[in-house]
């Protein structure tokens, strides 16, 4: 499932990132957001959500949240 559907505060493992945009993929990688790594949705916001990746907090939009598939 994608990040829009997960419970807040629970840790999930990233399964894959659905994008053809290599730049974005590489950027997410440098943040530590890639398959096999843990991710937590802290809260759902206007048009997106706040996620915790490694030790950083990020706000992402719905398009990106839907592209990150977790299990």
């Amino acid at each position, binding site marked *: 499932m994608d990040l829009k559907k997960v419970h807040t*505060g629970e*840790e999930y493992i990233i399964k894959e990132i659905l*994008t053809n*945009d*290599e*730049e*974005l993929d*590489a*950027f*997410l*990688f*440098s*943040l*530590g957001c*890639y398959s*096999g790594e843990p991710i*937590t949705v*802290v*809260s759902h*916001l*206007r*048009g*997106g959500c*706040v996620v*915790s990746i*490694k*030790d*950083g*907090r*990020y*706000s*992402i*939009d719905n*398009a*990106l949240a839907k*592209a990150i598939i977790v299990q």
Partner: protein
Amino acid sequence: MGRRTVDKKESSIKKSFYSGSEELVAVDLPGAYSMSPFTSEESIASGYVKHENPDVMINIVDATNLSRSLFFTTQLMELGIPMVVALNKSDVNEKRQTKIDAVKLSEKLGCPVIETVSITASDKGLAKLVESAVAQKGKVQTAPYVQDSIDLNDKAQVKEADRKRFEYVNRLVKEVETRKVLTKDRNINDKIDVVLTNKWIGIPIFAAVMFLVFHISQATLGPWIADYLVGWIEVFQGVVAEAVADASPFLQSLLVDGMIGGVGAVIGFLPLVMVMYFLIAILEDVGYMARVSVVLDPIFKRVGLSGKSVIPFVITTGCAIPGIMASRTIKNERERRATAMLAPFMPCGAKLPVIALFAGVFFGDAAWVGTLMYFVGIVLIFFGALLVNKIAGHKTRKSFFIVELPDYKAPSVKRAFLSMCSRGWAYIVKAGTVILVCNTVIQIMQTFDWRLQVVEEGMEHTSILASIASPFAVLLIPLGFGAWQLAAAAVTGFIAKENVVGTLAVVYGITNFINTEELVLMGGANEVAAMLGLSSAAALAYLMFNLFTPPCFAAIGAMNSEIKSKKWLFGGIGLQLGTGYTVAFLVYQTGTLITEGTLGTGFIPGLIAVAVMAAFVICLIKKADRDAAKEYA
């Protein structure tokens, strides 16, 4: 290298931080998270490191997010240049009860690791950092982790190697770091975020905060300081005028009105800019700006701008120069350029006297005139953004938004002050030089005729300015205002928009109706309207032409320094010229059609001009589409 600058900056290191005899030069590189040159900041950083062979690298690492920072650190170490790691934000870690074993980390990495706190000046870590950096010079750096030899052109292999590197970093972090508070846990920041980025009240809160910033910088504290400084400049101007009273009128005009007057105009605005910068720096420091971009991004993304674009637009209502400069915080280059070229559509403070004059003379001081101008400005920004997106946006058509949310913290007044000074200085240097040169040139053209004789009162049409403005006036016939005086006033508006009022007063000889010092109408609206000889449709068209053509030279100078591309700069100026012309044309022609039942003069030539511009824009869009199709084929 963790600092979020967007360009490299060089400066020498203060002696107070180092007692040795060598001259130390620090090169600050843009913040980067990895060695891959994906963003312009990262290309600058990796380009410098690879080609310039620095003696020592100081790698500033975000201690609150160690694993992300160390990924890049281990990559940098493979280059073999001696490195010192600065563990920045150690104070935040202390607060969160996170401990990093710096000694162990130093052993593991094979380079000195110094804990620093960049926001306090009395930081002992900094001197220690410089000292150990100097000590590292000439040593050979061994990398703690060396990537297996792989084919760098094979993306799958690169990805696999990067994963292994991250695994190594994760293990390393586990060994040296102990955390009590986990980042994924909900904390006080999240509670504040729920309010500030709320779907319904997020935007009203932002509006209130901006109103406050605007009020303090443009209406209270800023003007108080400005009035005080302008008083001093005027005294100086008087002294110089007296001193050169016997000199040639050319020199007098040049020195007193052109140069000192021009500098005075900058000084008059500077405090407003500085106070605005100070407050914005505070808001950035607190962490509020990141939240604002979250709130507004959904709206701005639709037209290809960033959530951060709103700050430049708001600041421009005071002055376009700091407004355009504020676009610097936008990381995406295309969004930054689009923002810088569109911000001037917001009517700035200098345009208010122009609006007031035309509202007073032609529309009985109706309030709707001013409101309409702001509304049209906003519409033009969105429309312009759509155009820019169509022409230049194909590479990022599918855009994602991600912004780091830093923890809220108490602002540092000192840091806001320093940020204000450095930005204020940039404003003085870049805007000041442009204003100075252009002011001087137009002042000369207005004062003299081609034989370099001073133009007598009543003979203004013989001035150099008039003869240059006359051909332009022909182009303005389809807009309803083809008189050289109006063209000349529009031209002087490029020095500073409030000049439009003063120039009109002078060239029409109606200084008895318009106070040229205060730039206000003093009655006689009907007489002034008769002198200008404009219909109300033409007057509205002329007003909009002045507001929505390119901004003053100083603002164009600011556009140049933020856009950093001649192609984009001229594209932006072209867009502004085209927009001003088209808007004035449409307003005049439809206005005349409504009020008089016929089309205005020069409809066909004007229509052709607008059609040619439209065709040009359509060609650009078609070309962009073809390029995009090729790229994705």
